[in-house]
């Protein structure tokens, strides 16, 4: 907000006086910041073509490298194709150091509160469909997303967790974020499994995503409880969660043949972004007929 206010202050030669800070340009990646106290930066891409209905929105949560802009860049072609809007929150290291664990850092806002501020702000926009919240989290983003569902069971409707490094297990004997037990980092915020019945949750991981690079948490307790690789950890978590969930709800797991770790490689080069979006989106209506197609 301050940016545009500064521009407006005392200036009479700015082309648009009433510009606010939430104007979206279609067909362009916009870098914006929420107006509220959390001041969450985000990238938004709205498709050039308006399908004549409120656009579905997909939130894409970046991983440990904070490659938010790369998410927007990689996903914009799918956004065009599917006629939907992409929103990528940018959880900066400085402000949201432990966003994967949905924990606040120092005096900074908690990442889940910041995300809700963003969602509330986007809800003010009439031609965005936020009646359901759909999100994909890649790697550290997948960590964030499943913990978000535990903390806010009514928030998310569809989620894809793509190759998270590790998980919060549904075990009361281990403190959060390892398990559901009490922890200073959690404060008095309750955890719940209800969100996994309210939401459709799919876990995707490449069957070759078995490396133990420095980006993978190699804590001995995590190795012991969940296994040593992303594949084993995903299998362990899904099995444990499904054992705890009522019989009419379940989390699905899909191993992707030949896939290793890497956002761009998996979403763009290997084309699994489309699989993710097919999972998250309702069936996309055909674009309105043009004069040309009507005449032919």
């Amino acid at each position, binding site marked *: 907000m301050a940016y545009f206010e500064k521009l407006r202050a005392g200036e009479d030669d700015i082309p*648009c006086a009433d510009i606010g800070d939430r*104007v979206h340009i279609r*067909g362009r*990646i916009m870098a914006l910041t929420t107006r509220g106290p959390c001041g969450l930066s985000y990238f938004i891409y709205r498709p050039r073509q308006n399908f004549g209905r409120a656009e579905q929105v997909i939130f894409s949560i970046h991983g440990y490298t904070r490659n938010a802009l*790369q998410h927007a860049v990689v996903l914009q072609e799918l956004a065009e194709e599917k006629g939907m809007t992409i929103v990528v929150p940018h959880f900066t290291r400085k402000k949201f150091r432990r966003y994967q664990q949905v924990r606040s850092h120092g005096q900074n806002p908690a990442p889940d509160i910041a995300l809700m501020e963003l969602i509330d702000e986007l809800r003010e926009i009439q031609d965005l469909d936020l009646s359901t919240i759909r999100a994909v989290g890649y790697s550290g983003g997948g960590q964030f997303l499943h913990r978000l569902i535990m903390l806010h069971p009514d928030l998310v409707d569809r989620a894809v967790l793509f190759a998270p490094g590790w998980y919060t297990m549904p075990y009361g004997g281990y403190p959060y974020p390892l398990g559901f037990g009490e922890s200073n980092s959690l404060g008095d915020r309750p955890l719940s499994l209800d969100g996994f019945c309210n939401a459709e949750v799919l876990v995707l991981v490449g069957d070759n995503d078995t490396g133990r690079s420095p980006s993978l948490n190699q804590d001995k307790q995590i190795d012991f409880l969940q296994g040593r690789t992303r594949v084993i950890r995903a299998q362990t978590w899904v099995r444990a969660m499904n054992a705890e969930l009522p019989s009419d709800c379940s989390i699905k797991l899909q191993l992707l043949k030949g896939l290793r770790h890497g956002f*761009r490689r998996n979403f763009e080069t290997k084309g699994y972004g489309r699989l993710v979006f097919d999972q998250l989106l309702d069936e996309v209506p055909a674009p309105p007929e043009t004069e040309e197609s009507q005449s032919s």
Partner: protein
Amino acid sequence: MSFKMMESMNFKATKRAFVTRNVRISDAKGYRSDLKPRNGDLCVARVSRIGHHQRIEQPDGRRARMFPGDMIIVAYSNRYATDQFEGRVPDSVEPCSLVAAGGIAASLISRHSSTKKPTAIEPLGILCRADGSAMNVMDYALERAAVGRAVRPHMALVVGSGMNAGKTTTVAAIIRAAKQASLKVGAIKITGTGAGGDLWFYKDSGAKVTIDFTDAGHAATVGLTLAQLETIAQKLYAEASKTCDIIIAEIADGLFQTETDLLMKSPRFQAMVDSVLFASGDPMGALAGVRHLRALGLIPSAVSGALTASDLAAKEAAKATGLPALTLAEFAQNEQVLSTIMKPARIAKTPVPVETVEGFGLAREYSDDSRFTAAS
């Protein structure tokens, strides 16, 4: 027709200039001295006296020393450099000057008072093909690329107050920041005088694609028409957008330079620009530049350039303009610097329908205001 075969000289011993790098030199079968030089014509010349430029930049970037009697292959073009020379294409094949190390032959009009006389050259003639037709750098220009992607990359434009304002350093810093964000970066220089220095700087900073107006068929851009300048911008943008996620564009010289001024006032060009940074050597220049851009209808996202070498000057500039003054350290360390840079240069007042676009058709795709729609 005064056609001399190339075999009559030791062609392999010639030093070929950077601006000729896209030319298929094997096409040259001789040279003619009876033609009137045109902008971009290739010229074979003998160095008669060493002056300001003691070296000539070669296609691979090596700056080869020149000695009297050396044969060089350069291109006729105009030159506009406030710190060096002003030159124009001569009317005939006659003794003239090497007015840029990248290989520009021109008749000298004026020079900066602190600059030595230019290196003098004696053109033998204009390079010709077997049929006697003159070879021109435009003959080897990039074709306009077809659009194969449904989306177009963000174009951040860097302009400045003049020569040595820090534009190229700013471009390089943005390239590194974008590279740090795991993006494929394209760097394009739309106007200027042919030389490799800026392109090598872009490349060394991590740009995946580095091209300039010489790739669009112009040894230099001074004296070109607006239509030619727009075509250069379109060609370079289209080429870089084939493989890049973000494109950083630089326009040479200051905002008051004729060709820069033409481009910046062009609605077609303005509509290509997603965000603008202004580089300046001092806070006063920054304020003037920001005001000038706003008057043109472009909102800069930040200021940068040589002024940011001084913390005090950077603070002054930020205070005066109300914009972030981005230092090199901020480019390197501020994880939100790309968000800052990408603040939009233009914003619509009212929602307007957005045209569906197929193919490149810039006139339609980027027609004024057609890309804007307000969300609320």
